[in-house]
């Protein structure tokens, strides 16, 4: 399953990539919204995006907006917002723009795994009893 990690921070992309690979995902990266849109064109089989909020060129919310038109009423690909923005109003906003889950930074691998499980995207290595 392909996941696109959208974040302007190299270290964050690296950590996220590591966690997601451990869960069995094939990981692609983008530094901002515009790059993400290009990647989405190239890889229509991307099933999951993790999206940072504050990024140059095109931020996370703008990316959500750009994707909203494309996604229409289809909730695919699944989008998880991952951001230091931790105000309730901001979270509400991201969810209303089409995010399926929201993770506040800092977070742990356990949190990421659990949230992906809610979305039915636990990955193959995640069948814990």
């Amino acid at each position, binding site marked *: 399953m392909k996941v696109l990690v959208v974040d302007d921070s190299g270290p964050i992309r690296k950590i996220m990539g590591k966690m997601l690979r451990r869960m069995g995902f094939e990981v692609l990266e983008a530094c901002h919204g515009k790059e993400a849109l290009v990647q989405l064109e190239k890889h229509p089989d991307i099933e999951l995006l993790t999206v940072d909020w504050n990024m140059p060129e095109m931020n996370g919310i703008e990316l959500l907006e750009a994707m909203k038109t494309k996604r229409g009423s289809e909730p695919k690909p699944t989008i998880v917002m991952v951001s230091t923005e*931790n*105000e*309730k109003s901001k*979270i*509400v906003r991201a*969810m209303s723009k089409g*995010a399926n*889950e*929201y*993770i*506040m930074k800092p*977070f*742990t691998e*356990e*949190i990421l795994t*659990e*949230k992906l*499980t*809610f979305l039915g995207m636990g990955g193959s290595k995640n069948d*814990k*009893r």
Partner: protein
Amino acid sequence: MISKEILTYFFSILYQESGLVLDESKKYLIETRLEPIAAQEGFESINALGRALIQKRSPILRQKVVDAMTTNETYFFRDQRPFTIMKEEVFPALIKAKEKSKQIHIWCAASSTGQEPYSLAMMVKEMGPKLAGWSVQIQATDISEDVLKKARLGIYSQHEVQRGLSTPYLLRYFTQKGLTWQLKPVIRDMVRFRRLNLLSNLSSVGDVDVVFCRNILIYFDSKTKQNVIARISDLITPEGVLFLGGSEALMGIKSSLTRIGTAQGSYYKKSTPNKGNTEKTVPELKRRGVCQT
């Protein structure tokens, strides 16, 4: 460094008070947990704290020490599976079985800081119309006053509200307070918290349809486990169920409960007279005045 004698003494009061069994491998844990208490209470070391407890009876200090040594680890919708089983199997069955009384009693027997009973409360709230006209009572008990205090407040850190909780639930049921999040009164008011030691008399709990006794049996020795399970199962109604933690089972323990395996994991049910275990079940049900045969 904590002396062997004092360490043994701490283990023995922990066992006497709560039934929890620790061994030398947990020495570091005892040290990190008890150091702050020793300091707070004005003792120069953990050894001094131990000696003071040996010399004079101080129930309050003893309780503090026991509290500090117990593991309170918990999170919302822990393991998910028990909650899925509750929603998909147990609730529908209880809604049929309790049609007349329209009352369901749930008990979280070692509720720690409240995430477990509150998860059940949110789930009940979500069921909305299916439970319209029903009274669902959720009792939550724990041996530690500290965790109960936190549970009643229903205030959790950013980290805690992300563990196991989905964002729609966070937005619907919590109010943000600075860096923390507090459960709204609609959910808080659904749960009643009080102190109860599982080793003590449990009759104050009353009859219960659902028991969550999760991630506590693993810390008990087999004798204590047997004793606690026997007394808990006495409280479970004929249509009632028991959930244990992910790594816990009633293997080797005598009880009137039968394991039900599902794709989502397992839980325990009161054995019915026609399904196995008749020997123990029939007298048990007769005693409770519910046996029809």
